[in-house]
């Protein structure tokens, strides 16, 4: 029962995140929603292991926890350099926009 409640909460959260992923408006909002969606999936899979009575199959959750950020990083790289090959330690294509107007 308690797992059911938690699962319901996660599912509601997933749907809300999905709304943000669909709505945008910027690409970053979508990426953020996707990343948050990933975290929720990790938990959901863990909870469903309990619901199915097989909590020892948490390996999938461990796997997502380990790897879920891979795509986010690829996306970052994609924006910064528009290539996947260069080291992130090199300056990107954009000139640094950040100037001395950091503090409001």
């Amino acid at each position, binding site marked *: 029962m308690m797992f059911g409640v938690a699962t319901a909460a996660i599912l509601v959260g997933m749907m809300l995140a999905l709304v943000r992923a669909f709505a945008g408006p910027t690409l970053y909002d979508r990426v953020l929603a996707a990343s948050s969606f990933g975290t929720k999936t990790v938990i959901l899979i863990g909870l469903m292991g309990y619901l199915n009575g097989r909590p020892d199959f948490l*390996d999938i959750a461990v796997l997502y926890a380990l790897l879920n950020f891979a795509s986010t990083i690829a996306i*970052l790289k994609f924006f910064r350099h*528009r290539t996947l090959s260069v*080291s992130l*330690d090199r*300056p990107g294509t954009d000139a640094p926009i950040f100037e001395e107007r950091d503090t409001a």
Partner: protein
Amino acid sequence: MSIEHLILRVVIKIMFAPILLFALYVQFHGDFGPGGGFQAGVIFAVAFILHALIMGLEETKRVLPVGALKILMVVGFLFYAGTGVATMLLGGNLLGYDAIDPASTHHAGQHWGILLVEFGVGMAVSSTMVMIFYQFAGREPEIRDEDW
């Protein structure tokens, strides 16, 4: 080294070895739980893909050269096919693992056969995945600024 991506770099360095170990765990526990060679191979490859994303493709190619990957692809597949051929030479049919240890009463041959072929799958899949990533990432992007 710039510090711009320091957070990413530090975390990747910390996560690199655990991801590899998790891949190997999945590889060797395919008999007991979910997983097996294919999944392990993919996870193993992701560790290197992450490495390449953060440290740069050249650096990863130094760690895992393209030539070595090619050989690993072939060796991985031949591990599988070779197990099959070996069982043929031992008097069974192709992939008839019982021929590995015909005397065993608890089918040790099956266990060994499965371990061997899963290992082959893992090796072939991981090297192929990294190879595909190399090929995609190693190209001059054709996306133009006006398209962006």
